[in-house]
């Protein structure tokens, strides 16, 4: 019942909604703004579903803020509302128009009413009248090529900023750029108004000469402000602190940097490629050596500028020294004032002949940005005394780097020439190599199996039959042999005959035992198929043997022979 009622109501609602004519309208939260401020635009669709086409908004940048839908029932009539919300950011000042926005509903295009927006210029940045703005500057606008300069992007905000992201990050065409990850934040008063300033710093090194333009950086920020829209119970906002988020797009001015070309370097010298302000020093850990000993020359280049590009300087080692360069060790810091640090180049020096030597100073030619010219620096020279080796060795080689340093002189071995290895000249190259054919393989696989089968067969053949019948049969035969043996006493003779008879009868029955009565023997023989007469005869023979045995009566030779003969015949018949 309830289910039927629900379906009926729903069908009624659907029919009512679909019967309505679709309407669209657009409203903004304000129509006077400054450049960079955002306007909230709502496109409301009633009585249908459709997406607003904002491609005609050329004077504004639009950002979708999502959609909401709702059912309304007024005076018994229901309607559905679909609200699309956008943030519009004017791109220029002047009297701008939000044109009629087309919305397609069920294949039919509906238009909103155009809205006029007055966009005024922003006040100057240093007026303190803006709530939020950005600036960009460079430390010098006429650097030398290779000279590092500092690009500083600053966000000033006097109101709360909820989120900020680069819509268009600064593009540094013609520069090598590195961002300093630590962003600096501080407070600054501008024309009597306090702003929070956030600095983003990039170190730029121009890689080409001429006039280079740093394009504007565009930052999108979300501002948390008190709501401007009229709403019921607005007086309660002060109590509940109602705020809303507005989007602003902020843009820096483009910057122009004139990069100067470096003048020609001094003739006959080798420019190190360093531009900035640098120093050089050198140290030698031992000056008194033996032939074959190693001493380490450490050359340190330090300063501010492109220190990471510093190449290993030429080490003016005497001819009788072997040199082994180690991997450079560098310590580089990137800070708001640029790149600085030091690079240490260690070289192991190994004298191969005794004598007095002088290691000339290591020199460095760099471009000094303060002086605007090349400077040549020299480290200390060293005098080295080399005495003969204690071992008298003359051919010295070194495989180890500077003392205390990991062995880093090893290199990946590369081919210095390519050729093939020689032919094989042994006469075994003429021997036919016998390969195992499939047939031979199968045969060899079968051999162990056949061996296994033969083993099983042999086991079966040699296995003893330990069944009761077999045991009793063997016992009967053995007893007959004992009875037939010469010199056997009468008692032993009779016991053996009795045992032979009993064993033979029980053996046929496949059972074990040592004695039988007359009746047991007879019935046993009948069971195995003997006729009554034969069974009686055999049973009587057994009884006769037993009676001789227990009576102790002496047996003559004829009687012994008779008993033996009859017993043998009976046993043989039984064992057949």
């Amino acid at each position, binding site marked *: 019942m309830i289910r039927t009622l629900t379906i009926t109501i729903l069908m009624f609602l659907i029919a009512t909604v679909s019967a309505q004519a679709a309407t669209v309208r657009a409203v903004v939260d304000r129509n006077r703004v400054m450049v960079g401020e955002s306007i909230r635009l709502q496109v409301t669709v009633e009585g249908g579903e459709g997406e607003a086409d904002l491609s005609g908004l050329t004077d504004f940048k639009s950002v979708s803020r999502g959609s909401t839908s709702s059912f309304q029932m007024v005076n018994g009539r229901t309607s559905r509302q679909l609200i699309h919300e956008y943030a519009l950011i004017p791109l220029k000042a002047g009297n701008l128009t939000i044109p009629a926005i087309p919305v397609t509903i069920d294949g039919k295009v509906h238009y909103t009413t155009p809205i006029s927006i007055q966009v005024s210029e922003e006040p100057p940045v240093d007026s303190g009248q803006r709530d939020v703005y950005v600036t960009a500057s460079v430390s010098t606008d006429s650097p030398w090529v290779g000279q590092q300069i500092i690009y500083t992007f600053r966000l000033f905000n006097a109101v709360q900023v909820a989120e900020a992201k680069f819509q268009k990050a600064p593009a540094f065409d013609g520069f090598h750029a590195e961002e300093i990850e630590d962003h600096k934040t501080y407070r600054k008063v501008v024309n009597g108004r306090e702003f929070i300033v956030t600095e983003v710093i990039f170190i730029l090194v121009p890689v080409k000469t001429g006039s280079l333009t740093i394009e504007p950086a565009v930052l999108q920020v979300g501002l948390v402000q008190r709501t401007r829209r009229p709403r019921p119970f607005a007086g309660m906002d002060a109590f509940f602190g109602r705020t809303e988020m507005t989007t602003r797009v902020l843009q820096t001015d483009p910057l122009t940097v004139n990069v100067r070309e470096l003048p020609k370097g001094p003739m006959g010298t080798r420019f190190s490629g360093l531009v900035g302000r640098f120093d050089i020093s050198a140290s030698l850990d031992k000056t008194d050596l033996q032939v074959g000993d190693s001493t380490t020359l450490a050359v340190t280049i330090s300063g501010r500028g492109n220190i990471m590009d510093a190449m290993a300087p030429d080490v003016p080692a005497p001819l009788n020294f072997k040199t082994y360069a180690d991997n450079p060790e560098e310590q580089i810091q990137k800070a708001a004032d640029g790149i600085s640090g030091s690079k240490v180049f260690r070289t192991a020096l190994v004298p191969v002949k005794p004598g007095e030597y002088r290691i000339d100073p290591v020199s460095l030619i760099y471009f000094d940005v303060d002086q605007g010219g090349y400077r040549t620096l020299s480290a200390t020279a060293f005098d080295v005394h080399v005495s003969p080796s204690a071992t008298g060795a003359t051919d010295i080689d070194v495989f180890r780097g500077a003392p205390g340093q990991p062995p880093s002189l090893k290199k990946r071995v590369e081919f210095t020439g390519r050729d093939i*290895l020689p032919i094989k000249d042994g006469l075994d190259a003429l021997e036919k190599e016998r390969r195992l054919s499939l047939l031979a393989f199968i045969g060899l*696989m079968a051999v*162990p199996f056949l*061996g296994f089968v033969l083993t099983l067969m042999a*086991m079966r053949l040699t296995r003893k039959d330990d069944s009761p019948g077999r045991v009793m049969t063997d016992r009967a035969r053995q007893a007959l042999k004992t009875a037939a043996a010469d010199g056997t006493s009468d008692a032993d003779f009779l016991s053996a005959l009795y045992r032979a008879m009993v064993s033979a009868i029980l053996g046929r029955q496949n059972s074990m035992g040592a004695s039988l009565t007359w009746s047991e023997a007879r019935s046993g023989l009948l069971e195995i198929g003997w006729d009554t007469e034969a069974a009686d005869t055999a049973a009587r023979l057994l009884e006769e043997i037993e009676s001789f045995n227990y009576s102790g009566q002496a047996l003559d030779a004829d009687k012994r022979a008779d008993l033996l003969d009859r017993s043998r015949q009976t046993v043989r018949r039984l064992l057949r």
Partner: protein
Amino acid sequence: MKSWIPIAAGLLLVFTILTGAQATENARVFMDGTAAYNSGDWPAAIKAFEQLAAKGIDNGRLFYNLGNAYLKNDDLGRALLWYERALKHIPEDPDLNFNYDYALTLTKDEPVKQASPILRILFFWKYQLGADTIRWIALGLNAVLWVSLAVLAIRKKHLLRPSIILVGAATLIFSATAAFNYIEAVRIKRAIILPAEVAVRSGFSETATQLFVLHAGTKVKVERQSEEYLLIRYTKDKIGWVKQVDAGII
């Protein structure tokens, strides 16, 4: 009555003399080939070694020498063909592997992997061990298995059972691999492209459409064989006909 004994002895002597003479002749040709190679006369070395191979001497070292001689003579296709043949006999020879790898660097066509990486991992023993090694391992394991079973039957040592199950599993794996290798050797034929450049065509005539071009030393699979042509497959999607003289079957 015993007259057959001198006749048999005579025949044996003649056979021995003939065999010995043959061996001496082969040794002389081989030494000539070696000397020619060492003096840089590669064509003479090739001639000598080919003469021995034509006599049916099936030896990996001889094939290796032929590969070397052809490589020195700038005939990459035939060099790789003989190296491939040598690999069937002496797959673990370090000299052969070094020279083979070097020759492969001279080929122009991208080598095609013969088996997927997953197969190479799953059946690693097949790809890591030579066919002969697998055969002998299978034979050894088979012998151990049946001997163990016989011991179990005689001595009733039940403790042996887990070991026997393991040996049985290994025997099965290696025997199956050996059997697969035999079938593969018979059923799957591969060839090496011999000339510097060969047009692979859609049919067996010179006017058939050229489908693609292969270069000396490229290894291909032989799908079919006609009187003068071979249907070869380079990759899954590249198949066509080449003249038999342009591809040497390994």
